């Protein structure tokens, strides 16, 4: 097996396929386009809130398998949780990519990205959907 193949394992493929389940949300509380300007990938996210809870996440992913898989992880983990769960997800994703620290709790699904750790130039792909949701939520809370 060549060096690049390890990231395309069944877990990632499975997640990426699930990204298609993420529908659009008509009356979202916020929506945001995040671009990886270096490669041209774009993630559009829509979030519906219920108070401080994330009710639903939708949108559209135009990007590689890693971007799709990461979007699917968020779509699987966040709805129904407090919005603060997202910050935790980003922290866990960064730690996993940086030194392989396993993700836990709500974000266990991130462990599918363990093989990506050795592919530094693809780390941004995993983080792009997180950044999109983060920026989307920032639009709604007036902090920023």
């Amino acid at each position, binding site marked *: 097996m060549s060096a690049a193949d390890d990231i395309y394992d069944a877990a990632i493929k499975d997640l990426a396929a699930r990204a298609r389940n993420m529908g659009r949300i008509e009356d979202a509380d916020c929506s945001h386009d995040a671009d990886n300007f270096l*490669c*041209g990938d774009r993630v559009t996210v829509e979030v519906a809130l219920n108070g401080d809870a994330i009710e639903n996440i939708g949108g559209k992913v135009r*990007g*590689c398998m890693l971007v*799709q898989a990461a979007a699917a992880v968020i779509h699987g983990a966040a709805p129904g949780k407090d919005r603060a769960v997202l910050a935790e997800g980003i922290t866990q994703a960064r730690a996993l990519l940086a030194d392989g620290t396993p993700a836990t709790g709500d974000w266990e699904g991130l462990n599918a990205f363990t093989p990506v750790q050795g*592919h530094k130039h693809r780390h941004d792909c995993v983080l792009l959907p997180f950044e999109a949701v983060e920026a989307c939520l920032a639009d709604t809370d007036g902090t920023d």
Partner: protein
Amino acid sequence: MNSFRNLFPAIASGRARTYLDNAAMTQIAKPVTDRMAEFEADGRSNVKRGIYPLATRANESFEAARASVAAFMGAKDKDEVIFTSGATAAINLVAHAYGAGLKSGDEIMVGEGEHHANIVPWQMLCERKGLELVVLPVDGDGHLQIEKMVDLISDRTRLIAVTHGSNVTGAVTDVRIISNMARKRGIPVLIDGAQRAGHGPVDVASIGCDFYVLSGHKMFGPTGIGALWARPEILQDLPPFLGGGEMITRVSFDGTDYAPPPHRFEAGTPPVTQAIGLGAAADWMMGLDWAEITTAERELTQSLLDVLNQHKRITVWDPMGVAAGKVPRLPILSFTVEGAHPHDICEVMGGEGVALRGGHHCAQPLMSAFGVDATTRASLALYNDETDIEAFDKAITRMLKVLS
């Protein structure tokens, strides 16, 4: 083995094995690195003003390089060639210097399939001066619809900027027809030759254009260098773009007089060593048999197409008729794979030692016209051969399996 491979250490050594990303950057030729290394080892010096022997040698080498590039482009006089830091810088130079004379309501026409380098400078010019950008559309396989040009030209059209060869599909524009039509109406034409230049000398005189740009790193030369050729009658009256040393005749706080072309457009210390390298690349390329190379490049392109056409999941964004060898094309092609994203394709194929580029190729409007976000691109240079096709074939098969 392809006899050019020995002149490219990165290719000969196998370190850049199956390098099919030549449209982004070619490998550099030994005659180029040799001449640059010699210039520096023997004592380099700044150009244009020195009197001691190293300085006069530097200046002579620099001006000889200008003459070589001029010959490569078919220019009559070396002083019609301006050294820039690349094709992008050359187009921006024209957008500023020629653009300075344009007025609100004037129009610039660009092709829909252009590289961003031949779109964004014009958008920015339009923004600065209140001009209109008029888009000449492409057809379904990326060819410019030249027949629509007449309708889109108006009496406010001030420039037509089109590529000589597409960096996405390899489609070659009929620049002679365009220049001829424009010339009859007194409209200058800029040709973006960034891709075309890696496939042999060009002839601005027979094209009949007014500006022609190219980049060193796509024609076996160094990075950090490009060239602009401009018709001397136009150049003579153009105001400068960048300000600085060596582009002036006299500076005072009351006012400044500018030097004649080409110096007026070469502010500051030029990329001296790189200009000498580009001259070496031009000299070397002018000595090759381009009829033979072009035939070889076409055959290899056909082989690439044959590999891709074996697979139902693959669609080639192929300029019409080219696969059958009917019209001129560059050995560049783009494809998409059902259910696989170009970045993932490049990752897997890169792991197999095959260098491809995936993405929008700095041609997002063309991607929109095709209705895709991104493609995967394979692009050949004179040092590619059948071994590269074999490796490509194997890697494609593997990629289809991995990304299934």
